[in-house]
């Protein structure tokens, strides 16, 4: 595994930056540039790069979809949220000479925001391509077929020209996929979800979204600490504040930045990436969440520092 690329990072449903939101960013950028002159586009670029992330960019965007670049010819993907649409187009653009492509897709669960991208996943329409969809839910295939049935969608699953395959993963039993060892673990979420641990060439990546952590159960915590153990990157559902996640939003199946930091610290993980952002959060709110999480890590640090990021559509992290 070489790199992780985020195509969809928002929880529950896609969020678009509005015209008013863009205007606020432009106003802020122009205010910051007041009195300055730029001799070239490069200088403008340097200035834009100096702005805070919310002033010059956006977290997005699409629902869950994360690409794992293995260094091999096959594509690996976690979840088929709406981010699968831009990922599919990018994969097509990367196709060398029209050669068939193979996609290994790992599903955390079958809720709408994690499967809604499949009907718009262009590589699945291309004859010769192979799409292998892995998961631990017994109803995996049925759920994906059902979302394309009438009256929910006009184009039936049978329209796909690619070979569509489904593979059941038994939790706790590692499976080799394209040179990567893949292990799933049951998580607490309505209808169940599964976390993934990917290991290859001494690198470990954990994808743990839509996962609630019942804090009173020590054995649950121990299980996750072991699953996260020494991971180079943990992609973690940090949708709610800790207070919300154990009060008004208890049993909603999501977690917090605070629990993410604690689990990663206990596990000796190196990098925590906040993921599955609450759709009501704007860019400033997510940026503030990131700053607070970094501060929490700083004031609670015991051993080596834990790097903290907030995922955004387009973020690339080298493993």
């Amino acid at each position, binding site marked *: 595994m070489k790199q992780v690329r985020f195509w969809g990072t928002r929880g529950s449903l896609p969020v678009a930056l509005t015209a008013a939101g863009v205007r606020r960013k432009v106003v802020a950028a122009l205010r910051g540039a007041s009195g300055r002159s730029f001799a070239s586009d490069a200088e403008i670029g340097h200035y834009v790069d100096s702005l805070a992330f919310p002033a010059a960019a956006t977290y997005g965007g699409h629902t869950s979809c994360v690409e794992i670049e293995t260094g091999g010819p096959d594509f690996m993907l976690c979840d088929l949220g709406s981010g699968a649409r831009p990922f599919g187009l990018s994969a097509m653009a990367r196709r060398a000479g029209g050669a068939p492509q193979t996609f290994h897709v790992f599903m955390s669960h079958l809720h709408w925001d994690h499967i809604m991208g499949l009907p718009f996943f262009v590589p699945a329409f291309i004859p010769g391509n192979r799409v292998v969809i892995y998961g631990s839910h017994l109803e995996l295939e049925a759920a994906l077929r059902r979302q394309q049935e009438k009256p929910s969608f006009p184009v039936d699953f049978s329209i796909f020209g690619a070979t569509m395959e489904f593979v059941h993963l038994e939790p706790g039993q590692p499976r080799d996929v394209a040179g990567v060892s893949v292990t799933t673990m049951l998580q607490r979420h309505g209808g169940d979800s599964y976390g993934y641990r990917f290991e290859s060439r001494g690198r470990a990546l954990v994808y743990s979204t839509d996962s609630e952590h019942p804090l*009173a159960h020590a054995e649950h915590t121990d299980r996750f600490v072991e699953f996260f153990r020494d991971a180079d990157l943990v992609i973690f559902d940090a949708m709610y504040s*800790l*207070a919300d996640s154990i*009060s008004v939003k208890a049993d909603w199946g999501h977690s*917090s930045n*605070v629990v993410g930091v*604690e689990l990663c610290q206990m596990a000796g993980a190196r990098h925590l990436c906040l993921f599955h952002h609450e759709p009501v959060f704007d860019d400033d709110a997510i940026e503030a969440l990131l700053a*607070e999480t970094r501060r929490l890590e700083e004031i609670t640090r015991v051993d080596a520092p834990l790097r903290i990021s907030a995922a955004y559509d387009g973020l690339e992290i080298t493993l």
Partner: protein
Amino acid sequence: MQIATRQLADTALVGVVGRVDHRSAGQLEQALAPMMARVGSVRGAIVLDFSGVEYISSVGLRVLMVAGKQMRSQAASFAIAGLQPVVAEIFAISRFDRVLAVHADVPSALAQCSASALAAWQAAESPAGPSSPP
């Protein structure tokens, strides 16, 4: 972690010292359980003196959330006082400062929860001691 309790009129003042983390949170939960039953039955209050707490984890915060919820259900008061700066930051980041009554110090918390408990605390803390003549 160390826990010491003083009864002030209708209020239990609970001094907590050390780390409230995954290892020790259960100890705090067990200490609070009988107190909540007793104080709650008379609609009194529990005030946690956190001035000696240097760290609290999510598991410890959950104990506070559960206790606060149970006290509210009994129309009793539950407050936390004297957060050290680091612990105050953890409360803010976790948003617990928005769901629990947090006060700068013990007298402020007592003033909010029970006038009789505040009077008892002031009498006990005065230089002359609680039994001195007026």
